[in-house]
């Protein structure tokens, strides 16, 4: 046989193999656009499939039996002063087991952590009113709620908490730090703060109050150009209703363009994100969800939710915009429905479900992943703003919101340009 024949046959076989390998993705969704994604993932998947085949399968270790054997042995034979209580050992084992999955969002909540999580979800709590996050092992202020005791005491975004009532917080879980800061209204808490432009850490004493975390804040940011501003702080059951109310309010003042602020918004309910996204994107997809088993579902704009006009739009994001915030930002970017301003988002492309366990503890499990309509993996790539604006130390000190200023400036330019171009038929549509 001629060499060219051999090459042709080899190519045919390789092509057949690849078709077989990718067949499932396209066939299961009927969407040919998944083919490109599938091909992009091919090298990694092949490596994984072959790796799995080669892995020693004779040495399986059943987790429950192994835990039981080792903990029994420890109970009967461990010699030392640091003997842990059975509960603590069991929780540590569960945490270790979940850590092995390599997914930082799948985690165990012991009864105390679970109780606090539930308090957080209720919305009202007694504390100082500051949103915290863990940044490179530092407990950092995302922003003080306005109004709140934290804001009144001069706590700023980016402040690092070193101690709470004299107790160092290094090495503690974020939830433990929150537990230390919270307490009954009227009582005092002292935070030792490190601020980037102050050389020495300093103490701030704050009196706790009942805090109601705001969901939506809005104002007419630019009266002359009629540029409205809506800050969405979280996605919960009330968010879409409050968003509508803010829109109606701004429209009554003659709004011509909108700044949506998703900075510091950690996310929330997925369907609420889709509903609010529908109000901001004329048409197209909002998110692609991959559930267990790998099935991909595309969620598009819901026309029934489009109860307002569409406006020229800028969206503010930062490193604390996560999850549902990234869904909306990504969808707006992919559908070219607005301009994103700020800094890279957090990068959380996974959906969790909290499941209760006997004895008051719970487990948080990643049950789905999501991608932007163009199949960008938010978890790895984050959302890059179209216009990067990073506030300087000076800006933070002087309380100047350069990101918001930029977003407003972009809208002003666009409104101006529209006026000039569409001057002739200005009355036709509006």
């Amino acid at each position, binding site marked *: 046989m001629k060499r060219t024949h051999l090459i042709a046959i080899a190519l045919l076989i390789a092509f057949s193999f690849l078709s077989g390998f990718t*067949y499932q993705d396209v066939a299961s969704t009927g969407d040919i656009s998944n083919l490109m994604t599938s091909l992009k993932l091919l090298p990694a998947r092949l490596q994984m499939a072959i790796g799995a085949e080669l892995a020693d399968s004779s040495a399986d270790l059943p987790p429950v039996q192994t*835990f039981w054997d080792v903990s029994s042995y420890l109970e009967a034979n461990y010699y030392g002063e640091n003997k842990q209580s059975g509960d603590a050992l069991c929780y540590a084992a569960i945490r270790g087991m979940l850590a092995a999955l390599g997914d930082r969002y799948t985690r165990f909540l012991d009864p105390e952590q679970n109780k606090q999580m539930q308090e957080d979800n209720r919305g009202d709590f007694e504390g100082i009113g500051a949103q915290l996050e863990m940044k490179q092992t530092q407990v950092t202020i995302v922003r003080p709620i306005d109004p709140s005791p934290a804001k009144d005491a001069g706590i700023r975004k980016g402040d690092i908490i070193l101690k709470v009532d004299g107790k160092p917080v290094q090495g503690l879980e974020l939830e433990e730090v929150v537990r230390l800061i919270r307490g009954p209204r009227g009582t005092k808490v002292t935070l030792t703060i490190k601020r980037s432009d102050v050389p020495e850490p300093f103490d701030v004493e704050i009196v706790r109050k009942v805090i109601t975390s705001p969901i939506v804040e809005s104002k007419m940011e630019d009266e002359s150009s009629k540029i409205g501003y809506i800050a969405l702080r979280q996605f919960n059951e009330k968010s879409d209703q409050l968003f509508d109310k803010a829109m109606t309010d701004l429209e009554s003042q003659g709004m011509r363009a909108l700044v949506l602020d998703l900075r510091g918004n950690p996310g929330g309910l997925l369907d609420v994100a889709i509903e609010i996204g529908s109000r901001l994107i004329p048409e197209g997809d909002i998110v692609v969800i991959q559930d267990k088993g790998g099935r991909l579902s595309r969620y598009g704009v819901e026309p029934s939710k489009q109860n307002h006009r569409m406006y020229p739009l800028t969206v503010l994001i930062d490193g604390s915009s996560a999850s549902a915030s990234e869904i909306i930002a990504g969808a707006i970017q992919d559908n070219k429905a607005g301009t994103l301003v700020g800094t890279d988002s957090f990068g959380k492309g996974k959906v969790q479900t909290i499941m209760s366990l006997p004895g008051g503890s719970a487990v948080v499990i990643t049950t789905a992943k999501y991608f932007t309509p163009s199949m960008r993996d938010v978890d790895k790539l984050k959302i890059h703003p179209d216009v990067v604006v990073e506030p300087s130390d000076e800006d933070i000190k002087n309380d100047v919101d350069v990101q918001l200023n930029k977003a407003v400036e972009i809208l002003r330019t666009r409104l101006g340009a529209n006026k000039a171009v569409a001057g002739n038929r200005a009355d036709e549509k509006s």
Partner: protein
Amino acid sequence: MPADKGYQELKKRYSIIGTWLVVVGLAGAAFLAGASLRAKQDVFSLPQESTVQASALIKLTPEQMPVKIESIAKAQGDVRHRELLNSVLKLVQAHYVDKITAAEETKMARGAVQGMLDSIGDPDTRFVDPKESKLLDDAAAGRFHGIGAILALKREKQGDEETHKLIVVTPMPGSPAEKAGIRPGDVISDVGGKWVIAYDPGFAKLNKAMQNQDIDKLSYKKGWQEAEEKLKNGLSISSALDELTAKTSGETTLRIERPGHKEPIELKVQYRDTVVDPVTSRMLDKRIGYIRISQFNPRAAKEFPVELTKMRNAGAKALVIDLRNSPGGLLDTATGIAAQLTGGGNLAVIREQTTRRTIRVPKTKAIGLPVTALINNGTASVAELVAAVLKESGVATLVGTRTFGDGLIQTPLVLRDSSAALITTGKMLTPKGVDFTGSGVKPDKEVADGDKDADVQLEEARKLLQAKLGRS
């Protein structure tokens, strides 16, 4: 012939069809192979980095023989804990976005054991993955890799801050570490130009800033940046251990902090395999024999009596037992060897969770020769016990420096996938009940370590024995 020609034509055509059938068949098979390989995994699940880290050889070898997990007594724990873990696993299997394969379950089981043991906060009670399990087996058999040194993790607490130091228990004889001049007690601070991360430098700087309020802004900022840089270019302790105890070729530069030296020392060390002869002997002169025990493994148990007889037959009237740089090994081997020198009796007191027992063998005749034992900072674990037994029984005089001070007993619990849980199950005390953990065993005659060219400790031992022989 036309008929023949037609037959040839037909044959050719069939062979083409046949070839195509084979090709199409192969293509189909390839399609199915691709599809089935693909079906075994989840869509969009890219490889995830494992959080179960390989740690590496820290102690030479456990003091007890391995226990198989299948053989241990069951049902000692709280059933609610098993049920809770079971519930979590079931929920994860049912709902976690990626499929949980058998390999993943094995990883989860290892993670559970690791999480549980780490929470105890005892550096010797830890999970050992199959790779390190192999290193432990090799070490027990006298085969060492990397720089050929026994390393230990030392925790120190200063204020709010905990530091972890990688210290050398001892270099093994003939190892690259010994050739490079590494000594017991050396602290390895850098490997290959990378700082071994011993603490969180940023936090340390912050603490200093808080204690010392008069710090100028510029130097503070500079310090902060340096700390960040340090962490970024650092090497985790487990990666450092991996390199130092597992590599079989290449070389590296170590930065070492040595007690008594102000300046750090830089040493070039090779990575290669070292095979250790656990027991060696020679005659120092016509009357004095010398036996060195580098490791207490089963081979040492077999070879010690042979070497002892060899020394007697060569006319030894006195004996130097060299326990320097001997990191230990099996408890049974150690008590067996000690009994041959002391003639039996009490050999150790073992404290376990609920019991305290004495290891004793029937008293027979002691060795009947004057003995001097050499000890130093690298004499650890069961080697220290042997030194203490020789001293307490009056059989030997100890010469050298104070021993390492580790009498804790580890038992490996071997899991079904050949990984293991290394668990502290007891503590050795001397036959008289003295606890030497932490304090070490003190020599009768203190002589500091010499150098390569002048073994002053051995000279001293010999002098002591010559004096005794001279008198008798």
